[in-house]
């Protein structure tokens, strides 16, 4: 069964304290990995797509990387506004569409 596991479940950082979130997956024939940000009571907000091992994407203080077994979301010098739940998801192809299988997320709190 395809699985997506995220760690840690929760992370508290001081403003400016860099760290990394992990997403490990067991999917045969990975065809992409997605990172989303979710604020409380809101829908997931798309951040990055990674397709191949060694690929990196950056956006402001966030950088996502991908290996053959896992992905990391690195947060450099975070600010309180980066506080959110970060979700990773992998697509499962079914015919012409793809359903996303999500991890449980990492709840990030950045303290001022």
């Amino acid at each position, binding site marked *: 069964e395809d699985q997506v596991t995220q760690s840690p479940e929760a992370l508290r950082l001081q403003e400016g304290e860099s760290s990394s979130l992990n997403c490990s997956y067991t999917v045969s024939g990975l065809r*992409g990995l*997605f990172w*989303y940000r979710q604020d409380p*009571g*809101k*829908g*997931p*907000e*798309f951040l990055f*797509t990674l397709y191949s091992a060694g690929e990196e994407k950056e956006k402001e203080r966030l950088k996502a990387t991908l290996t053959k077994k896992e992905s990391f979301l690195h947060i450099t010098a975070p600010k309180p506004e980066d506080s959110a739940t970060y*979700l990773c*998801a992998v697509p499962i192809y*079914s*015919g*012409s*569409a*793809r*359903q*996303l*299988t*999500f*991890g*449980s*997320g990492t709840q990030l709190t950045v303290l001022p």
Partner: protein
Amino acid sequence: EPEVTQTPSHQVTQMGQEVILRCVPISNHLYFYWYRQILGQKVEFLVSFYNNEISEKSEIFDDQFSVERPDGSNFTLKIRSTKLEDSAMYFCASSRGGEQYFGPGTRLTVT
């Protein structure tokens, strides 16, 4: 920037009643999805829709659920006879084939 919209933002209904959740996907997108998230749990896939038909559905999407694209812009999820366990956030998403863009969600509360 185009975005997925959903209405209503919050729906309260009694057990056994029918509800219709509405979504307007991004206009040039071809694939449409419904997901749900029970409080404190993972986002779960319900159904995908392409070319005016269901592409795939999960075990959650039983005979009580249906989807429809009644015109060129709206995409709806109907629950025929709601149960307490249907209480959740329901998210609509759309894509052109790559990343999926999610709406803000409808919080469904079944009493």
